[in-house]
């Protein structure tokens, strides 16, 4: 079956599903979207982009790997591959997160639920695998470690699934920075909760943790074409967000946010007190903000592209001043910019096709440089000529995205390019 035909079938199936469903993945990327407890932000020129890359059978050693690309325009190796650290196995490499001191990068796999810890401080150009944590399923019953969110001295890990039925009911695990398990917290299944999980985002001043919801192992490890043809499977996607008391790690309020709300971004502007997310299936932006009584509410505030065409918003990246939001839509390979001058009514002001399929988007602190990768999940990526695998860099002058360089991950025999994090020598040099 050709890639075009597969995707036509998928579009038809999706358009017939009214109430629930969605796929998608994405990630918490970039310099404006790190945990607020990661305080060593790169506010100048970044030197490296780390790309957590899914292994592909027959491509190189076929294993997942952490790839380092030189992104400093003043470097002689600008735009070139610098290093690739293989973890020696293939585990549906997905997302990453810095520890609070930014000395280590935790990167996980959704298939075997392993968490790999890389030392990025000793030699930022050449990360070193120093530990692999493999006890999450045993300790918690959860599968599919997805989001890695630094807390002081700890890492909060949001899982996607569970070991019992491999569905979407899951929870969070807390490890200390040494990799020792501390505690587990189930996602709420009562009071409107569906028990699903996806992303994490903290507003420390308000002691508020927001979580979103996606789907479980049985869906994300299954070929997407099969999932969308299975009406029961399509019901097993998240439709909620949860506001938690971070200190107590207890749910405070559950919001109905239909269509798999994925990435969550708090505005970083001083005085702002809101977060935004994108619901993948419904192609909507949602604002999470207190009402006039101080009660947290979730509100649909904008449409992304034409929902009838299922553009599938996968990753979002907020500008540091909270005034703009980049949105990548996987299906049409489009990068979109929303003006958030009024977060109650975001306006799409710019679009550009940046690939046959695009997933993650990360921006530098000043917003002048954007990085885009291509892969969603091994079984969900497009096929044939549409299965581009790349890291593409762009410059942004406020009006136009201009290509800067590209690394072809297929040509380089690396794999499927997924989550990105930025690195800099100055963070660790004496």
């Amino acid at each position: 079956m050709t890639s075009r035909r597969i995707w036509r079938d998928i579009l038809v199936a999706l358009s017939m599903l009214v109430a629930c469903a969605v796929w998608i993945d994405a990630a918490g990327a970039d310099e404006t979207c790190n945990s607020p407890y990661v305080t060593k932000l790169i506010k100048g020129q970044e030197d490296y982009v780390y790309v957590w890359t899914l292994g592909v059978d027959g491509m190189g050693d076929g294993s997942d790997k952490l790839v380092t690309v030189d992104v400093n325009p003043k470097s002689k190796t600008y735009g070139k591959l610098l290093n690739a650290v293989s973890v020696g196995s293939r585990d549906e490499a997905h997302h990453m997160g810095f520890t609070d001191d930014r000395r280590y990068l935790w990167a996980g796999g959704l298939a075997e639920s392993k968490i790999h810890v890389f030392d990025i401080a000793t030699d930022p150009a050449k990360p070193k695998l120093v530990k692999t944590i493999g006890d999450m399923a045993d300790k918690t019953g959860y599968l599919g470690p997805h989001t890695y969110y630094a807390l002081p001295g700890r890492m909060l890990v949001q899982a996607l699934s569970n070991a019992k039925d491999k569905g979407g009911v899951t929870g969070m695990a807390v490890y200390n920075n040494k990799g020792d398990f501390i505690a587990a917290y189930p996602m709420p299944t009562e009071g409107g909760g569906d028990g699903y999980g996806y992303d994490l985002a903290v507003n420390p001043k308000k002691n508020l943790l927001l979580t979103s919801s996606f789907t479980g192992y049985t869906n994300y490890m299954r070929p997407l074409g099969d999932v969308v043809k299975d009406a029961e499977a399509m019901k097993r996607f998240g439709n909620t967000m949860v506001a938690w008391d971070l200190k107590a790690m207890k749910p405070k309020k559950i919001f109905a946010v239909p269509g798999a709300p994925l990435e969550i971004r708090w505005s970083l502007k001083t005085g702002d007190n809101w977060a935004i997310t994108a619901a993948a299936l419904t192609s909507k932006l949602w604002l999470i903000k207190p009402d006039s009584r101080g009660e947290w509410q979730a509100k649909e505030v904008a449409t992304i592209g034409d929902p009838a065409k299922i553009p599938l918003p996968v990753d979002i990246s907020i500008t540091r001043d909270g005034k703009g939001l980049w949105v990548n839509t996987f299906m049409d390979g489009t990068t979109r910019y929303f003006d958030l001058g009024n977060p109650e009514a975001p306006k799409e002001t710019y679009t550009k096709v940046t690939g046959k399929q695009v997933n993650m988007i990360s921006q530098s602190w000043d917003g002048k440089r954007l990085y885009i990768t291509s892969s969603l999940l091994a079984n969900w990526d497009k096929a044939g000529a549409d299965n581009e695998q790349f890291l593409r860099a762009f410059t942004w002058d406020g009006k136009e995205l201009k290509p800067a360089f590209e690394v072809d991950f297929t040509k380089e025999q690396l794999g499927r390019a997924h989550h990105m994090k930025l690195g800099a020598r100055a963070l660790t040099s004496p």
Partner: protein
Amino acid sequence: MRRAAAVLALACLAGAAPALGHEDSTPPLEFEPPAVGTYTLHRIVAAPDGEVLDLDGHPHRLRRVTAERITVLGLIYTTCVDPDGCPLALRVFDALEPVLRATPRLRNAVQLVTLSFDPEHDTPAAMRGYAGRRARPDPGGVPWHFLTTRSVRALSPILDGLGQDIRSTARAGAPGRVRELSHVLKVFLIDRAGFVREIYSSAFLHPRTVLNDIDTLLLAP
């Protein structure tokens, strides 16, 4: 002043006041902490051991110091000027001290420790100057230990164990080359068994959160 602070503190602990009042200059807390005893402070990591020096230069084992009581430990360096860094830790400790002193169950169970991570500059004498009147023995008060180490070598295992990352840089805009120790503010709550039970960053380091946690620890050690 101490009496007024104590009254306010007790009211605060009873949930009747929004924050510690008096002349405390800590930033306002923008959320209502969960009630004492309604949440769990997990054992995050074992607090490290190492040799430390008191204000007279006498050596002690850090673990023996922290084993005495529930310990609120702040890592600082005396020349730090970042308002969200070491000075904030000192302000919070200054706000905590009269509350602890005025509350019998806390006065006998809690101590404060201020430990320098700049042994090259922060000698015992320098720490004595930094401590000022806070270092004077007070039979009715809460112990407040000001500690340093002999060397970076002696300090390193303590910092590693606590996960405190320090990097030496030159202070931007300062005349000449002024050394700055770039770090993330961390204050540690350590139980009597020697486990770190909370790590506060500047975002939620506040007397109310610390007092809540201490009382929670007293209820469920």
